[in-house]
């Protein structure tokens, strides 16, 4: 089975994220990392081809940081990588789906996996939109897969409150992969060395037939710090002082102990 996995370079949210005087993101201090959900998707794809034969292609779209993610995907065991160079900040999920579909359409994939959402913007749309552009079935929040049989596969979908649904989906299909489905492997030294010899195809929107980038269907109006909320009563002092004060509060004021 042929599987493509979409990977995104996301802004590292642990790093400093600030606005300048005009309310624009200070882009120069942003750091990028691989979207964590996508690593679960890569791992799931590799396991599926290990058990059922086939090959995995990783694809990413974006600025330079995307290539680093693709190299990680190759080192984990993907056979090939496609890098679409463009600025995804201004594309929106619909535009991203159009470009990914253009790059993947002719390759005859049985399965396309994405992370359930991106850790920075969290739109959680590209997987299903891509499925529609490719004419594939799709489902989201997948926490379990099984071997394909008779052109179908059964997947386990995570619902709310601990509920799950088992869904049979027709192939070809797009699945968005939820965290916790597996334990993503760390690339071995051998994998990292092998990745250097693997094919990394570089392409652009123009080469994919887009003279201009697709117009976003949602317009960004601006970014702002979150509205202030009432904070907890913060305790101060040494660890021993704070501990003693907390126990006193919980015993005497809250009567919770």
């Amino acid at each position, binding site marked *: 089975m042929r599987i493509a996995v979409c990977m995104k370079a996301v802004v590292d*949210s642990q790093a400093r994220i600030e606005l300048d005087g005009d309310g624009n993101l200070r882009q120069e201090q942003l750091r990028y990392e691989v979207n964590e959900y996508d690593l679960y998707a890569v791992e799931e794809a590799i396991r599926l081809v290990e058990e059922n034969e086939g090959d995995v292609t990783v694809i990413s779209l974006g600025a330079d940081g995307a290539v680093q993610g693709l190299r990680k995907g190759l080192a984990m065991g993907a056979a090939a990588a496609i890098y679409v160079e463009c600025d995804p900040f201004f594309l929106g999920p619909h535009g991203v789906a159009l470009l990914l579909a253009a790059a993947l359409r002719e390759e005859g994939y049985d399965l396309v996996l994405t992370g*359930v959402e991106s850790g920075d913007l969290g739109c959680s749309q590209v997987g299903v939109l891509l499925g529609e552009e490719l004419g594939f079935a799709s*489902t989201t929040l997948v926490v379990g897969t099984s071997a394909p049989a008779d052109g179908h596969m059964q997947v386990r979908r995570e619902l*709310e*409150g601990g509920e799950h649904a088992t869904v049979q989906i027709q192939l070809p299909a797009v699945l968005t992969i939820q965290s916790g489905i597996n334990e993503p492997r760390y690339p071995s030294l051998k994998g990292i060395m092998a990745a250097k010899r693997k094919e990394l195809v570089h392409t652009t929107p123009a080469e994919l037939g887009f003279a201009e980038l697709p117009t976003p*269907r*949602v*317009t960004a109006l601006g970014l702002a710090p979150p509205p202030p909320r009432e904070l907890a009563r*913060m305790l101060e002092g040494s660890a021993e002082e704070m501990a003693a004060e907390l126990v006193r509060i919980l015993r005497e004021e809250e009567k919770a102990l």
Partner: protein
Amino acid sequence: MSRSVWLVAEHQDDQLHQGAAELASAARAVGDETVAVVCAAPGGTVPQQVAPSVDRVLVVEDPALDPYSAGLWAQAIVALAREHGPAAILLPHAPLGRDLAPLLASRLEAGLMTDCLELEWDEGLVGTRSVFRRKLVARERVATPLALATCQRGAFSAAPAGAPGAIVTAAVDIDADAVRTRLVAMERAEVGEVNISEAEVIVAGGRGLGDAEKFGIVQTLADALGGVMGASRPVVDQGWVPHDRQIGSSGVTVRPKLYFALGISGAVQHVVGMRESDVIVAINKDPQAPIFEYAHYGIAADVFKVVPALLAALGS
């Protein structure tokens, strides 16, 4: 022209999801007319259940529409939207909306804003959503004639019940053979040896504690307080504790008398499962962690320094 804003009524086993009233209040804030769309099997009572929250209920009845199927519900809603031309359609940012909203966006060529915290109408549907793990909020406006949005659970207060809106049954042909996904089975929540949803004292830990071994400090404090151990999603994903201890949107919702959050940052997925607790204490070395916005008492310090001191203070 009057602006009709629709919501997709979520239901299961002929029971309307309580989130529908939240969507109704979001719809009322941006629309002149609010319409609930109900996709259901014939003979159910979901239209009657949702009617007091909206001006009108549009019902598509077909045996194939129950249980929920994203593909078949999309067929029904696309047909209705093409016929009636609503200004906006709202869905929950939940498993249903994650599947269905992008399907509708694609088929109706509409812009979609997900996980909205606020909605307003300003030359189009304008939404506010958290980005960069809640460090910033983004304002966006849908640029297409039809606007779609999914709303975060709990972000909108439920609309009070009013006079029931008129219930109109719409004739839509559903092609059940066209659907490419089929529900095989539903699994209810697993209940572990300890039912954490009934515990009066819960000590929960997050990935910030470091590793499975260090996470043991959570159980130690829980034992000292006579409570039970819980965890946030990343801890369960890492396999440090079993899934039945997971607190949050995809796990268990709890409301103990006392809740300790150790090394938990406070992602919304966790917070929705514990914010109703009577007394919340958060210990986290990052003073900017969002968990302090939900806690009643906060200690911005190293869990591994504070908890031993706490154990000593409890013993005295």
